[in-house]
């Protein structure tokens, strides 16, 4: 932190927020719990990965599909999802509510050269720095995995970390906004957790509905995170989450201006909300993504991709599948998602008379998937990717692709035990965190 001796008010605010974070029992508890949570996930993941790699005499073929991203890093970093959802909001709420409840906020407001935007920015920066410190547990897990001889893909790890960083930033913004707009920290906690539960409910309700429902659901925190976990970097996800994060912090700054009439703050909040929605909508419209997964899980094979990219005619697909039909889910998250990423002009429409597809009227051709390219049409029922790709390629007049092995991913199987991980995450980490917290309070009695 900058030395506050001759610094500007913002430096003093940063230093103050840092001291307040160091004085926060909530943060030290979060830090202490991070180790065991990450450790629990990591140790379980390494053991499972080892078993699936043949360590327990399992089938050899299974190991070929194993990737450390799926097998180790997603479950290990999943601990940060729990922390961001259930622990971080309380740390963030304390950072805002502490000042309000103690009366410090009324004193801070009297510095005419510091706006509430600046105050919120200082809190956001320090809270994020606190998250980065907690994320050292993830770094340790990666280091341990490497020490076991495990393979790592830097693009995958960076992308996964970015997803969790965005999730943490979003959580901070929501919690800070909740604390600023409510009078009591308990109410703020209910609001913050309510928003999280609301996004889960929305995601659940939107499953299989398609259209805007599903498009919007893909920007809910857990769905957004899932994209990064799958090795897909989406510019739109970064922009949408960034816009919502900034929107939340802006609304917090508006409500911390307690000297302004509530009506004005409501109007400003509505305007900020509208601007955030517009920015998020604009961000969602921006195309561009990158499949950073080592096994190209979000893309067709290079040969398939090249063949599909060569097709310039618009592709129209009419899938007669109901929203809750599992085939529709498979297509939407598999072949059709890849088609949208690969081909320039794809339009996919689902038609059905019922929600489940179980009671569709006779003679409607339920289950048929019609592909139209120019004036040619063909029907296919399969949801298997190679069949869909060849259907489209043949429709374009090109010869179907022969089976090939050149694009297959060999995997990184590893038979290893999580040596030292239990000591590190269950003993050393929490003891170190609690000791640091204790000595910090001892040095500066609190």
């Amino acid at each position, binding site marked *: 932190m900058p030395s*506050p*001796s001759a*610094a500007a*008010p913002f430096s*003093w*605010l940063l230093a*103050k927020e840092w*001291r*307040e974070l160091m*004085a*926060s029992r909530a943060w030290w508890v979060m830090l202490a719990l991070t180790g065991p949570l990450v450790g629990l996930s990591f140790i379980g993941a390494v053991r499972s990965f080892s078993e699936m790699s043949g360590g327990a005499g399992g089938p050899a073929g299974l190991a070929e599909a194993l990737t450390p991203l799926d097998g180790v890093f997603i479950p290990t970093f999943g601990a940060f999802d729990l922390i961001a959802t259930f622990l971080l909001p309380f740390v963030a709420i304390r950072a805002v509510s502490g*000042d309000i409840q*103690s*009366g*410090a906020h*009324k*004193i*801070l*407001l*009297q*510095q*005419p050269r*510091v706006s509430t935007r600046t105050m919120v920015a200082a809190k956001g920066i320090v809270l994020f720095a606190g998250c980065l410190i907690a994320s050292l547990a993830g770094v340790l897990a990666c280091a341990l995995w490497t020490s076991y001889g495990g393979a790592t893909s830097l693009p995958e790890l960076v992308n996964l970390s970015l997803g969790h960083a965005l999730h943490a930033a979003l959580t901070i913004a929501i919690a800070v906004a909740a604390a600023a707009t409510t009078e009591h920290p308990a109410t703020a906690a209910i609001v913050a957790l309510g928003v999280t539960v609301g996004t889960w409910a929305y995601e659940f309700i939107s499953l299989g509905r398609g259209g805007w429902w599903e498009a919007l659901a893909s920007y809910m925190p857990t769905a957004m995170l899932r994209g990064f976990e799958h090795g897909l970097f989406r510019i739109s996800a970064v922009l949408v989450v960034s816009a919502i994060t900034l929107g939340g912090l802006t609304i917090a700054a508006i409500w911390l201006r*307690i*000297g*302004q*009439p*509530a009506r*004005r703050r409501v109007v400003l909040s509505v305007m900020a909300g509208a601007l955030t929605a517009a920015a998020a909508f604009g961000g969602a419209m921006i195309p561009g993504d990158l499949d950073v997964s080592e096994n190209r899980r979000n893309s067709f094979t290079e040969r398939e991709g090249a063949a599909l990219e060569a097709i310039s005619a618009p592709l129209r697909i009419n899938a007669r599948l109901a929203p809750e039909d599992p085939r529709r889910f498979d297509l939407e998250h598999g072949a059709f998602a890849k088609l949208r990423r690969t081909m320039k002009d794809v339009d996919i429409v689902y038609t059905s008379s019922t929600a489940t597809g179980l009671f569709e009227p006779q003679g409607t051709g339920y289950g048929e998937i019609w592909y139209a390219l120019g004036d040619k049409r063909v029907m296919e029922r399969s949801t298997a990717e190679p069949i869909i790709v060849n259907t489209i390629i043949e429709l374009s007049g090109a010869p179907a692709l022969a089976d090939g092995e050149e694009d297959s991913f060999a995997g990184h199987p590893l038979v290893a035990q999580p040596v030292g991980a239990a000591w590190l995450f269950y003993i050393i980490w929490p003891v170190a965190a609690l000791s640091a917290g204790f000595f910090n309070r001892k040095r*500066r*009695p*609190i």
Partner: protein
Amino acid sequence: MLPDTLHVTDLTKTYGALHALDAVTLSIRTGEVLGLIGPNGAGKTTLFECLAGVLPADRGSVHAGGAALDAKARADRLAYVPDGIAPWPAQTIRWALDFTVGYFGGRASERDAVVRALDLEALLDQPIGTLSKGQRKRTVLAIGLLMPQPVLLADEPFDGLDLRQSREVAAVLRAHAAAGRTLFLSIHQINDAARVCDRFVLIDRGHVTAEGTVDELAVQAAARGLTPAGASLEEIFLALT
């Protein structure tokens, strides 16, 4: 006659049907210690918070040198220390005072004198959250005295202090006023007010009922037939509120 620093005009604040402040008009003069006196619920804290910009007023303005002051200009002139707060309870008094000087660009040269005058030396490394009510009051007052604004609004600066401490704090406040600081103090103890203030604003149920020195208030009360000539501040207060 001291020049007027600030004119408060028509300041009004309502909570639903309750008129917390009803067209409050008063003047604050440079270098004076002005006492705001009124019974509980009279609107003293509301008046201070509206002036300091931490509570929105429905109507009214503050002028200085003939010009209306916006929120930023008001914050440049007015510092406010609320009653009953314990800011940054996890931090020490030393840090809170250093922070005040650094964050506000406050009166660094007066820091040690304020600490001595308010008898905080032995408590400097004590966390604010562990202080007694009187110690907290002196800490918050020290914060206010170190803030750079020329006018300090202090809400109940003697509340929680014993007689000796009240006298000492009154002397500190007088010394700061003598050095050019303007003080506007909300006080509900008449004796404390009489000890420290040059002039008084009497407020009752959101109305300013009188403003002036003890002699001026006595004349006003006598003119209204409420008190005999030469009445004490206590008698005047009871008559006018």
